[in-house]
């Protein structure tokens, strides 16, 4: 039963239940308050604060070892030492500073008491939602003096300004803060524990439901993720630093695109007087292509496309498009080829160059959650449907014939056949297993490569 209800009908205004975000904020604030604020100029008081956070066992230890610590000279907590205390005492001698400190202490006390009220309301509400059963038992704990996550604010009756002014120096405030922190930590642990108990069935439903949120998508895709930098053996590290200048990665196998070192900096007269120059500057390796660039004649001809579905027939053509899954009405993987081998990539590049392709559509998907700069994970390339179709020759033709053969079989042995074909004949391997598009590979070969 919540405290608001337990207090009876005299209270018309129910205590608002804080959200978990508010509770976490309060927890952070509480921890910071207890750990950071110079609540007293007495060294003993500062030490007491740290002990509150460490628990009662530490308090016993403190009592027994305080003299020893004083001798060692390591008894200052949170960076406050005797010099700081002396300095604080000096400034407190100024009436204006003293009044200001007193006023701030009063405000801070009031803020902390409000926070304690909020924590109390949250924990009571939490208990109410769980029910009045044996919570300690349900959590596998032995019943103690304090129930799980329960917290009662001993300072809730304070109201006047003078009370708050004096309260800052009272240990009861800080002990209450420490208790509130403990309660919140227990609640957070409980919430995390509940979150981890999501069943497999629930996870599946999260993945399949159409109303799944972005956050849920992010969470569900994080499972058992290994670092690609390690799995794929990136030859250069992911650089998260901002101090080092950016140096473009240029393929050493392509000397024509190599980096040309400049004799001087490229800023000319625009160099600021306080600029710090780098050790070396390199020219743009594609300067010639960029500076000699001219629009292709066909690029600036007036467009004569009249088909409302476009040359690729992708516009307003969902009803009869060969790339749309008739069952779901969404874009299928038909005609899409997955490339993850060097030979396949070389084949694609060669065909784009040989087929005199005029336009390619490109997009990238990158990952930047745990890496500041991120790295590219996927590249999608689309060309006109007929751009590469007539250019098929050599090994790829054989692959398509084999694919046609494979689709006569069951889907699950198709992959196996590809592996055998690759090992025996050294042919290219087209992954069609989970794209499920083997049947379309011949008629739309390389129409959409990704």
């Amino acid at each position: 039963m919540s405290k608001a209800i337990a207090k009876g009908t005299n209270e018309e205004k129910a205590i608002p239940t804080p959200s978990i975000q508010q509770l976490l904020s309060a927890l952070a604030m509480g921890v910071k308050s207890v750990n950071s604020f110079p609540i007293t100029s007495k060294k003993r008081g500062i030490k007491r604060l740290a002990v509150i956070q460490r628990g009662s066992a530490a308090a016993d230890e403190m009592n027994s070892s305080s003299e020893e610590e004083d001798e060692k000279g390591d008894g200052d907590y949170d960076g406050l030492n005797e010099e700081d205390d002396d300095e604080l005492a000096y400034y407190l001698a100024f009436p204006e500073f003293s009044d200001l400190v007193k006023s701030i202490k009063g405000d801070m006390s009031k803020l902390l008491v409000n926070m304690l009220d909020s924590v109390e309301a949250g924990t009571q509400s939490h208990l109410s939602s769980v029910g009045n059963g044996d919570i300690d038992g349900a959590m596998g704990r032995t019943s103690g003096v304090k129930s799980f996550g329960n917290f009662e604010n001993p300072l809730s009756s304070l109201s006047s300004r003078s009370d708050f002014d004096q309260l800052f120096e009272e240990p009861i405030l800080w002990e209450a803060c420490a208790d509130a922190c403990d309660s919140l930590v227990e609640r957070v642990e409980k919430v995390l524990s509940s979150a981890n108990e999501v069943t497999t069935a629930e996870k599946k439903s999260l993945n399949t439901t159409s109303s799944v949120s972005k956050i849920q998508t992010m969470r569900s895709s994080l499972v058992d993720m290994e670092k690609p930098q390690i799995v794929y053996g990136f030859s250069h590290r992911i650089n998260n630093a901002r101090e080092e200048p950016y140096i473009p990665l240029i393929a050493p196998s392509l000397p024509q695109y190599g980096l040309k070192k400049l004799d001087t900096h490229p800023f000319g007269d625009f160099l600021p007087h306080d600029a710090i120059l780098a050790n070396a500057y390199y020219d743009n390796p594609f300067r010639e292509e960029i500076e000699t660039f001219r629009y292709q004649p066909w690029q600036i001809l007036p467009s004569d496309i009249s088909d409302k579905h476009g040359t690729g027939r992708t516009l307003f053509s969902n009803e009869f498009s060969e790339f749309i899954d008739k069952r779901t009405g969404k874009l299928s993987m038909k005609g899409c080829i997955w490339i993850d081998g060097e030979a396949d990539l070389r084949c694609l590049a060669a065909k784009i160059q040989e087929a005199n392709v005029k336009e390619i559509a490109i997009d990238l998907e990158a990952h930047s959650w745990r890496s500041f700069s991120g790295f590219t994970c996927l590249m999608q390339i689309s060309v006109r449907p007929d751009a590469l179709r007539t250019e098929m020759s050599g090994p790829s033709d054989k692959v398509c014939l084999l694919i046609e053969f494979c689709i006569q079989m069951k889907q699950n042995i198709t992959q196996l056949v590809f592996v055998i074909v690759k090992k025996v004949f050294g042919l290219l391997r087209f992954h069609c297993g989970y794209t499920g598009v083997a049947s379309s590979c011949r008629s739309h070969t390389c129409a959409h490569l990704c």
Partner: protein
Amino acid sequence: MDTLALRAHVGPILAPIFADPSIVKVMHGADSDIPWLQRDFGIYVVNLFDTGKAARSLSLPSFGLAYLLSNYAGVVADKRHQLSDWRQRPIPDEMLAYARSDTHYLLDVYDKLLQNLDETEDVRSIRT
């Protein structure tokens, strides 16, 4: 294309194509893609047509890909996987379909944008 597995090969193999001025590279909102290509693969892009910039030049109501797909292709874009974890392999079909939709319609959208741009002063000045 799995740029994780092919990270060391993408640059050497595709850089000539991306630097080839006779091939128009059509991208949408390439502000991020261009540095990614340079950073990860040493690829520089020559002759880029950015459909986002084109939409801006045409002062369309929105410059996003979702609007272009809706307006020109009649497709409602599914953007749920914008923040998905693209490191995972194999990539689920749903995410692949999303990735594919980013470029599948783009060349036809590019054609339509070119048609609209034909009427603008900028393109006329280029022709002359």
